């Protein structure tokens, strides 16, 4: 009988099967899984994402066993398989493989989340001040633009640099969709970096605001009743027309536009059952599986990619530059409006609906308890989704011609 005690404790045994560096990274990832779970549980980071992601990380890095040919592996997911025969076999073994192959690798999960976001998005505030909202959102795309050449200068291929630059748009589904289309091999680390940073926006941006905007300007009051009224018919018509125009201009990103504006259209058409489905089970179900699969993809093989540290730095830089760009645009609007517009509206242009709008309101209220800017901040926040989709469309359709 060739049994050994280690056959029963393969999770531990496999630490000795792999190289010391891989084993050490695996140990660090197990710890990181616990930390994510703790931070999610304490609501320090976004719990809807961190708890499934932490469980996925913990599961995939602890549950390593000896597979065929004495190699270490897991029963969660193998993102590297592309051979159809191997894929058919593994679909019957790894429990998250069907979710990965049928919803991740074709970008479906990003579209499902976008449908949910569309169903909870209120276009009132964007349509009330369209030019201001769009211009503030464009200012807040600075990181999405500047990190592309910075990434290339740091040694990334232009498609990889464009994918990480999209983190500056602060829309998780867009980053995921863009990286799947442009740099599939880096899709996992880029998406994880994006979601990790997006979940710390609420904590990080107030420091940037305090650094760049004087307290006097942060407390500028705006009349919430002066927001003009928009009927559902106008919003519905706008959603349908703008979806058609953007899809004609950027067909590569048409699935994203269709998904987002489908959510908006059913909401404005008053289809309550659809809205309940999109904004409830679909959005939260997709977010649950997004977190779980992303966590399960975070194995030591992925983290040991030499570009991961660079991606971490560039992702942070993209969000930082976008925040600075948004606040500068806010300051310009403050001057142009003869001091009537609160410059904090600029940070809301970074998007990450509705986190940055809440950040703007929180910082304004800290400086002046009478400053209620949330309705105005929602305009650039929603506009940020559209500007990021436009830039994603240009990157995804233009970058292949530069390769």
């Amino acid at each position, binding site marked *: 009988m060739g049994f050994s005690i280690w056959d029963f404790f393969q999770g531990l045994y496999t630490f000795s099967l792999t190289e010391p560096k891989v084993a050490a990274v695996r140990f660090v990832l197990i710890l990181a899984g616990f930390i994510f779970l703790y931070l999610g549980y304490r609501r320090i980071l976004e719990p809807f994402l961190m708890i499934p992601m932490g469980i996925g990380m913990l599961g995939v890095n602890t549950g390593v066993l000896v597979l065929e040919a004495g190699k270490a592996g897991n029963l969660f997911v193998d993102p590297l398989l592309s051979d159809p025969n191997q894929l058919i076999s593994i679909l019957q073994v790894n429990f998250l493989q069907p979710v990965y192959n049928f919803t991740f690798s074709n970008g479906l999960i990003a579209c499902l989340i976008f449908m949910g976001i569309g169903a909870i998005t209120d276009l009132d505030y964007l349509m009330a001040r369209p030019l201001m909202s769009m211009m503030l959102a464009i200012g807040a795309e600075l990181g999405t633009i500047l990190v592309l050449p910075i990434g290339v200068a740091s040694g990334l291929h232009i498609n990889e*640099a464009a994918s990480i630059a999209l983190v500056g748009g602060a829309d998780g589904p867009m980053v995921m969709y863009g990286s799947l289309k442009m740099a599939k091999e880096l899709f996992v680390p880029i998406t994880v970096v994006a979601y990790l940073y997006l979940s710390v926006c609420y904590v990080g941006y107030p420091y940037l605001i305090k650094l760049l905007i004087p307290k006097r300007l942060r407390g500028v009051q705006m009349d919430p009743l002066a927001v003009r009224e928009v009927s559902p018919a106008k919003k519905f018509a706008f959603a349908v027309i703008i979806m058609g125009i953007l899809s004609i201009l950027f067909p590569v990103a048409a699935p994203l536009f269709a998904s987002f504006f489908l959510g908006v259209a059913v909401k404005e058409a008053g289809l309550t059952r659809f809205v309940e489905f999109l904004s409830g089970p679909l959005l939260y179900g997709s977010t649950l599986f997004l977190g779980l699969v992303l966590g399960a993809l975070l194995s030591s093989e992925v983290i040991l990619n030499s570009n991961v540290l660079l991606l971490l730095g560039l992702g942070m830089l993209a969000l930082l530059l976008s925040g600075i760009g948004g606040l500068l645009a806010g300051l310009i609007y403050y001057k142009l409006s003869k001091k009537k517009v609160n410059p904090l509206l600029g940070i809301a242009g970074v998007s990450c609906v509705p986190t940055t709008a809440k950040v703007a309101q929180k910082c304004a209220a800290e400086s002046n308890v009478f400053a209620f800017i949330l309705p105005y901040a929602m305009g650039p926040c929603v506009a940020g989704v559209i500007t990021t989709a436009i830039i994603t469309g240009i990157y995804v359709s233009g970058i292949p011609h530069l390769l």
Partner: protein
Amino acid sequence: MVKSIAFAFATYGVAIIVSIFTAGIIELFYLIFNRKEGKKTRDGKVEKA
């Protein structure tokens, strides 16, 4: 490198144009709808266009 800088700024240019265009469409909506419905004032009354 130069190609990436040129592409990035060209993208910014196109995004600005499309954003202004989008804002223009919304304003056009107001023009058309308000002409049809009459303009609503803040106290809820409707002014004839």
